[in-house]
């Protein structure tokens, strides 16, 4: 920070010759680090997607060799589902949404030249990369990758004699712990930078919603991850040193892990949800030319959600053997959290009222986020209500529910953000036509995957089973047909991702050149060059108003950039 700030103060734009290595690999530039996170996340998404392909094929055509993988043994199956979940949450949603967009957007949207701690930022990515490598190595060690589900409940995860993956489970745990360290370092940067380095004139209520949401998400993450890191250390010792923190035979308690895990695990949902909601808010205002409805209400709602999210964790444990009276408290808090989330959805819908809506690719993704997330939201009520959860717990209904939350977050929200900021990131435009082809292919296929899974869940199909033929009530042709539909839709959806990748890499080099502000947006990143140089601006901007002054009656143009004095 010190050196960059010094350069900016002297009127340089920090744009000096650098070798490939120092520019792209060991860079401290927030934009490059953001890209590194984003590209690593995309690569991990391909691995996670491939895993989904393999285990969905096994479920639709049990026992048959899967093209590109071969036969799926029960051990393979468990490892695939475990690592699919782990990767998609910790190595895709988190790095892309928080670290990727957070790094790229925070300095650009609050008008400063870089993060407050650029070297910590670089260290954060390096640890993250190491964690990804450790995880990938864990698939290939003796015994194979960890297969005890992404929640890693002991005693299964704690003892090699139960899990049969002596090295895999330890490496998995080490990878997750390293990943948390990376995000702690990132979180420190995000919060500190936003609080201290805003452009002159940018007050708290002038911060774009996406930045607020990333900041609140970082705070939630940092506040919730401590107990889980403690739990991870205990689990590591149980695995390798012979302690018995989670072993009832030695006076420990397996339920303790569940509390530590979900005390982190539930805020984690909001850690990834909030950045996606922020991205959607910014895109919706730009493409409906509307001021965000009730900015302050949204902000307080976000804070409220954040606080409440620390009080709901045990709804994952209603039937885990905790005192049944506890369920009442967590049913109430869980249903209460539906209120701020519903309120955010209402605000977003209200923002569209009276707008001038343009259905560009980013806007389609943003609108789809809301439409799909609503399904995830309302189905969550069934699970938060203790009495109904007795039936739905650990069925495909749960699985479909959280994919209706996580898919909008980690895939739809991310595509919204990438298609929207692509011109700023790379100085070129994506193809709108192929963007829309990709959009419709993905959205239609997505619903065709998970609606059948809701039905399977309602029929009592439980999770993490490699072959339902062992359960006569679930081995009926009707239910098998639903499994085949879901798998076929998955194949279609994966195929449509090729459209995105081609569009992405073609446009990266050959796309139409983008100007500074192609969407006539208000926020500060659109006042920097596309792509912004190292240091972002020759002269740092000043801020005069909030980020959402679209279609102001006193103005001829329908936008009013934050940095324009009048």
């Amino acid at each position, binding site marked *: 920070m010190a050196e960059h700030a010094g350069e900016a103060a002297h009127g340089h734009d920090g744009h000096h010759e650098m070798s490939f290595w120092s520019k792209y690999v060991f860079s401290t530039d927030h934009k490059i680090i953001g890209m590194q996170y984003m590209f690593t996340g995309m690569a991990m998404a391909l691995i996670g997607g491939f895993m989904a392909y393999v285990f969905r094929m096994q479920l639709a055509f049990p026992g048959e060799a899967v093209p590109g993988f071969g036969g799926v043994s*029960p051990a393979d199956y468990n490892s695939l589902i475990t690592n699919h979940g782990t990767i998609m949450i910790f190595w895709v949603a988190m790095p892309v949404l928080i670290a990727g967009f957070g790094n790229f957007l925070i300095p650009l949207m609050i008008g400063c030249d870089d993060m407050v701690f650029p070297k910590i930022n670089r260290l954060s990515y390096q640890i993250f990369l190491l964690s990804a490598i450790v995880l990938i190595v864990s698939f290939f060690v003796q015994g194979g990758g960890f297969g005890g589900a992404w929640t890693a409940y002991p005693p299964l995860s704690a003892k090699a004699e139960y899990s049969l993956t002596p090295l895999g489970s330890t490496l998995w745990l080490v990878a997750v712990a390293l990943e948390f360290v990376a995000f702690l370092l990132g979180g420190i940067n995000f919060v500190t930078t936003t609080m201290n380095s805003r452009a002159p004139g940018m007050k708290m209520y002038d911060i774009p919603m996406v930045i607020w949401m990333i900041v609140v998400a970082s705070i939630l993450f940092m506040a919730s991850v401590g107990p889980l890191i403690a739990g991870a250390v205990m689990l590591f010792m149980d695995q390798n040193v012979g302690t018995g923190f989670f072993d009832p035979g030695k006076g420990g308690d397996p339920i303790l892990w569940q509390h530590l895990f979900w005390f982190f695990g539930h805020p984690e949902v909001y850690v990834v949800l909030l950045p996606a909601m922020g991205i959607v808010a910014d895109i919706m205002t730009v493409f409906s030319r509307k*001021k965000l409805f009730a900015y302050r209400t949204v902000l307080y709602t976000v804070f409220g959600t954040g606080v409440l999210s620390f009080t709901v964790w045990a709804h994952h444990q209603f039937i885990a*053997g905790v005192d*049944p009276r506890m369920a*009442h408290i967590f049913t109430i808090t869980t249903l209460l959290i539906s209120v701020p989330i519903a309120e955010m959805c209402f605000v977003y819908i209200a923002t569209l009222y009276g707008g001038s809506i343009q259905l560009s690719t980013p806007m389609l993704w943003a609108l789809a986020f809301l*439409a799909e997330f609503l399904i995830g939201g309302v189905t969550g009520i069934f699970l938060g209500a203790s009495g*109904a959860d007795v039936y739905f717990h650990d069925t495909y209904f749960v699985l479909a529910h959280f994919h209706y939350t996580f898919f909008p977050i980690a895939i739809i929200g991310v595509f919204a953000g990438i298609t929207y900021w692509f011109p700023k990131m790379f100085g070129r435009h994506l193809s709108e036509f192929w963007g829309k082809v990709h959009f419709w292919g993905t959205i239609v296929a997505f619903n065709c995957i998970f609606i059948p899974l809701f039905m399977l869940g309602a029929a*009592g199909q439980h999770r993490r089973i490699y072959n339902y033929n062992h*359960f006569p009530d679930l081995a009926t042709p009707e239910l098998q047909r639903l499994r085949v539909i879901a798998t076929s839709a998955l194949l279609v959806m994966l195929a449509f991702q090729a459209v995105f990748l081609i569009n992405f890499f073609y446009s990266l080099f050959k796309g139409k050149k983008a100007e500074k502000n192609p969407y006539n947006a208000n926020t500060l990143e659109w006042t920097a060059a596309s792509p912004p140089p190292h240091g972002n601006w020759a002269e740092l901007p000043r801020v005069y108003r909030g980020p959402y002054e679209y279609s102001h009656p006193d103005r001829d143009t329908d936008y009013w950039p934050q940095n324009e004095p009048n």
Partner: protein
Amino acid sequence: MLEHYLPAASTYASDIDGLVNLIFWIVGVWFVLCQVVFFYFIIKFRRKPGVKAQYITGEEKEQKRWISIPHALVLICDVFIVYGAVTVWVDIKQTLPEPEESTPVRVIGQQWAWTFVHAGPDGLLDTPDDIETVDELRIQVNHKYRYQLESEDVLHNFSIPVFRLKQDAIPGRVIEGWFEATQTGTFDVQCAEICGIGHGIMAARIVIEPAADHAAWMSENAPRTVLAATTP
């Protein structure tokens, strides 16, 4: 909703199905309402040349009403759902039948099989006439059972979908619960908590039979040692 997919074969299955239906209708109305308004706005406010968007801050009182009234309504709906959820929950998980009017059965999960210890003709566990079976639970219809759930190794989950029953089994603890079947038949018993590579084959069946058939099965299968043990 759920009856469409599988029978409701326990006394509380219909309570859970009722709760599920209640939630379905409440959230269903909200969901449809939100989506209708949402798509209506998208269509109605599509960009038209020469038409500028309205400037609405949403900070004024009469504008905020559009958010605060639905907000209050959501809260009221939540109260109904909480009430329903708690009522059903108390009945299933917090109210155990009296020992005199129920029969105990021990359910033991281990990697990767279920062992069921039936009380036998005397209706008591840990007596010589106990009948132990693997992966088959036999009960009498319209009769209350108290299960004692245990695990030998890792977490398991004792799940009978037609009963709408699920309960984790935890090593080192005995968890008590109950069920009462309302119809005869043979149904799946699942392990609904991942328990290792054999999780996918940890299946059992529950056989629900009329009282006479059940008594016959018990006398056929009760260990021969019973007589010898009870004589002195």
